[in-house]
């Protein structure tokens, strides 16, 4: 089994090296994409085998070698394959495989095709390290690794020029990449502090040691650790207020958005909280957990409001990702870790599908992102239409679909915990989710064919690509059916991960479910009514609404990016320039002034050397006097 662990871990790395080192600088070679995809598929197969092993035999723990050892610190490259990590492994490798295959079609005209696969596989490798590591430092390696890959991939089309914020809220791919990286680093600092706290209080960074020791620590320390780690999670999972990078990261190629910014990397924060469930389920950190749940709920709602009016097809999906991450955090914060993880997996499938579908639309529309310019694409792109529909149904949480089970469970959890505000907001958000996701579907696939006037000739994606997407569609529909099995599977991990609804909740479950479904259906119906019409019922721009305050507020993302620009970026830039000025003028100036003072003293006293013996004698006399006076004084004193 150990070999299998290493195969699962390193085959993406091999793929990355293959594409990067051998062909990184050579012209486009289709087979690099296929080799990379095949190697990711190997990972998938290994992961599934490992999952079976975990389910039947139990967790695997391997240590490869020592990494850092200094003082008492000893960090190995160790990997643990248990219920949590293997779930993630399967999800990540499955989505990655499909995205890889998808990308061979999506990127086939890009001249940096080979480079793309090098980055994409490297990302999978980093993600695998993140998931599989058995200690916090290893997690941090993956954490930063995915950050860099995200930087590389968001900035993949680095040659694009900057545009002003008003024209393009994410300015340029390279700008968005930097923003994502730096914002993540802010959170990483929090995580580092958490690691330091753990080390100095426990003396190890191994999960098992740390979690065993946790209950014996003082409350204050536990709370600090919990907060610090969660700050790290907030960055990666783009929770408020570190969320702006996620929508901007949509500058990257669509497969990247699907893989990194929907299915895998952004869920790393949720993964961390789930991974640290023995910590977050402690009584001492209950406040922190509640905060996580509340923040998650808030973000779910907050992102959904922005998605209601967004025009950019990818931004809508990104905002819905943000919103769903909020759901996951809500569940994790409320203690329903396995439900959070289940929703994470379900979300990965339908969101990746949604993104890839959006990618198809973009591809068909020559990279046009504005849904106002689309419409009536359903005939031209039947396959994508079906996929997008399935994904949206899943996202909206309609019965049978994966989203129904997982999301409903989260909402039920909120009810079960008695946190009715959270429950209420999550329910409302569920309705909004249905509305905006179908708004997008109807906008792009139904209604008038607005694109014709603009001269587009849409065509659907390659057949094989569409076929490759089928597993995702299948899982988007059916994943929820396996919820019971999954529960049995993950209950084998430990006690804190287990979560059961109370009897009352069970009793009212049908009603809760109905409310959610009713709201979702209302949302879909509203969207249909407003956007799907043709002819005279067709949607028209509502200038008055677009001029209203609420629209402006939402369109500008609650002015948060503006705020960051005005109150962080610009002051920082100005302060930097001022500091530089200060450094040159004052700090360096003082040094120069000292030098100049010496020079001036020399220059002035040069007058003494006037060549006149008499004045020399005078100076000598003064000197002699001084010496005599000193002699007298010192004899008097001492």
């Amino acid at each position: 089994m150990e070999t299998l662990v290493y195969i699962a871990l390193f085959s993406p790395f091999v793929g990355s090296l293959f594409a990067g080192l051998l062909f990184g600088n050579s012209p486009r070679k289709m087979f690099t994409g296929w080799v990379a995809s095949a190697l990711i598929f190997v990972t998938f197969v290994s992961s599934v085998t490992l999952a079976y092993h975990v389910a039947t035999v139990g967790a695997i723990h391997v240590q490869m070698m020592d990494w850092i050892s200094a003082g008492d610190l000893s960090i190995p490259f160790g990997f643990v394959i248990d219920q949590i990590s293997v779930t993630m492994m399967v999800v990540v490798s499955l989505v990655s495989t499909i995205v890889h295959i998808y990308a061979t079609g999506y990127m086939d005209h890009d001249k940096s095709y080979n480079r793309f696969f090098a980055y994409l596989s490297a990302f999978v490798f980093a993600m695998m390290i993140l998931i599989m590591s058995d200690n916090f430092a290893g997690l941090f390696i993956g954490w930063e690794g995915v950050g860099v890959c995200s930087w590389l991939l968001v900035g993949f089309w680095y040659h694009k020029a900057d545009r002003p914020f008003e024209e393009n809220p994410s300015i340029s791919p390279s700008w968005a990449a930097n923003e994502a990286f730096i914002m993540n680093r802010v959170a990483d600092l929090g995580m580092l502090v958490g690691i330091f706290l753990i080390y100095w209080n426990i003396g190890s960074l191994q999960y098992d040691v740390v979690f065993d020791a946790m209950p014996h620590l003082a409350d204050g320390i536990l709370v600090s650790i919990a907060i610090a780690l969660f700050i790290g999670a907030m960055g990666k999972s783009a929770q408020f207020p570190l969320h702006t990078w996620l929508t901007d990261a949509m500058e990257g190629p669509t497969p990247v958005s699907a893989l990194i910014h929907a299915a895998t990397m952004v869920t790393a924060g949720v993964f961390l909280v789930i991974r640290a469930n023995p910590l977050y389920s402690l009584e001492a950190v209950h406040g922190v957990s509640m905060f996580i749940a509340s923040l998650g709920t808030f973000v779910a709602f907050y992102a959904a409001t922005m998605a209601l009016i967004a025009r950019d097809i990818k931004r809508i999906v990104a905002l819905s990702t943000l919103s769903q991450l909020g759901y996951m955090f809500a569940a994790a914060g409320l203690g329903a870790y396995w439900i959070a993880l289940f929703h994470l997996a379900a979300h990965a499938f339908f969101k990746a599908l949604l993104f890839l579908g959006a990618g198809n639309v973009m591809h068909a529309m020559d990279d046009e992102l504005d849904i106002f310019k689309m419409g009536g694409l359903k005939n031209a792109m039947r396959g994508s239409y079906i996929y997008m529909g399935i994904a949206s149904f899943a996202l909206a949480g309609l019965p049978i679909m994966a989203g129904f089970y997982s999301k409903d469970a989260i909402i039920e959890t909120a009810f079960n915990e008695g946190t009715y505000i959270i429950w209420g907001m999550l329910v409302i958000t569920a309705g909004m989710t249905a509305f905006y996701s179908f708004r997008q579907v109807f906008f792009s696939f139904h209604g008038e064919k607005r694109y014709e006037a603009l001269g587009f000739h849409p065509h659907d994606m390659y057949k094989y690509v569409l076929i490759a997407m089928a597993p995702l569609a299948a899982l988007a529909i059916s994943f929820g059916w396996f919820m019971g099995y999954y529960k049995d599977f993950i209950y084998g991990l430990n006690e804190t991960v287990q979560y059961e609804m109370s009897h009352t909740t069970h009793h009212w479950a049908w009603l809760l479910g109905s409310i959610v479904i009713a709201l979702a259906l209302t949302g879909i119906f509203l969207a249909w009514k407003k956007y799907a019409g043709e002819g005279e019922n067709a949607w028209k721009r509502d200038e008055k609404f677009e001029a209203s305050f609420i629209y402006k507020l939402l369109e500008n993302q609650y002015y948060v990016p503006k705020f960051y620009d005005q109150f962080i970026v610009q002051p920082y830039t100005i302060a930097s320039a001022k500091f530089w000025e200060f450094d040159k003028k004052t700090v360096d100036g003082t040094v120069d002034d000292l030098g100049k003072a010496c020079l001036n003293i020399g220059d002035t006293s040069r007058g003494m050397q006037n060549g006149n013996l008499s004045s020399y004698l005078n100076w000598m006399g003064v000197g002699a006097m001084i010496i005599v006076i000193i002699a007298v004084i010192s004899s008097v004193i001492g």
Partner: protein
Amino acid sequence: MDTILSILIFFPAIAGFVGFGITKGSAKIYGIAVATIELILALLLWMQFDTSNAGMQFTEKVALIADFGISYNVGVDGISLFIVVMAALITLLGIILLRPDTKNMKNMIISLLFLEMTMVGVFLTLDAIIFYLFWELSLVPMLYIVGAWGGKDRVYAAVKFFLYTFAGSLVMLVGLLAMAYLYHQANGVWSFSILDWYTLPLTEDQQFWLFLAFFAGFAIKVPMFPFHTWLPWAHGQAPTIGSVILAAVLLKMGTYGFVRFSLPILPDASVTFIPLIMALSLIMVIYTAMIAFAQKDMKQVIAYSSVSHMGIIMLGVFAMNAEGLGGSVFLMLSHGIVSGALFMLVGVIYERTGTKLMSEFGGLAAVMPIYATVFGLMLMASVGLPLTIGFVGEFLVLLGFYKISAIGTILAGSTIIIGSVYMLALFKKSFFGPVRHEKNLALKDLDKRELTALIPLVLIVVWLGVYPKPILGPIDNSAKHILTQMEAKAINPATKETIILSKKEAE
């Protein structure tokens, strides 16, 4: 094998003298050959080095002025070993990277070889006077390199560099002499041997003043805020090779001095001064990183980033535990490698375009992909990405310093944020976006000469990032050794409490 250290020190100098007789055309080859032999010798030393022994090895001692206890005394431990190896490596790669059409190539090579002698000498010597001798001698070849091959303000920069560091080291000399005097008072014999000094008990008052004296010499060399302003000038005007060696090795002399002198000789004062050092280092870390962000010149960005990173190293030196101290020594190495490489890379583009202004570039990633890749990797190492060499040291330093001050660590940790801010801004401005100038489209990617110099650094960056153990092990041993000495020597119980030998013991 017993005299390998002396050979290491004096071989480049002798070769330098011989170099006067070499013809102009073969000067570079000669330089490469000598530097290669020196590197092989250094590696040989590493092979022979007993990693389990934390103390001094390969010691040699020849009395020079017996009456005053001045002797030629050399030795190597885990801390100096790798700095010496790095100095030899960086010198070799620097010489390889020299343009074949450098003017006065012969003089350049000879200067470099003498510089190598002084660098190796500083790190290997165990006698304060000899240490001071090499310390000051190292200024001279650097003065020539900056002053003769530099940019248009080279004379100003060279003189500033020389006078500034010289002024500081004179104060340090007073400290060294005072130290010897105190030793004489206590034991009746003169000794300038650092190892003897380690055993000399000093009152807190004496330690306080001696620390200040040493501080003047070392802090300017590091360079600590507010004594750092010579560095941007020196880097701005120095030729590539000068910047590379300056950043990679010469700055490390300052921090090495703190490790070798201040800590073990003056343990109580070192602890007393932690707040001051912390304040200055934090200013260095944050303030200079912000200045780096404001720069328009690529080289200046890296120059200021050097100051910022040296701040982290300083924090590690004063973390008073093996994690921090070992980490800071490792960070010295990694910073040497990474900043050396970055300066080389800036030199590469400067050779091609004649400018270092970021506004002149843009879109270089498309024109020079290999260059951009190497640059990107070094950049990531510089911002401390895990699995590159930069992370290990930075992580350990911050981890170690957390025990001293949590707030200080969080502030210092902001380096991972603001460090990436200026580095990514640099990368975006020069490598991303559309190609701004037509003429940049014709730029050539790295050629063989440049790749030969850079590939080893790339490999080291990755290798030591993934598997730092061969180097971290001996460093850790010696760091613990130093801390043990400090704890044994400390007279103030508060000092003993601050120094943490082992966490288990502390609990």
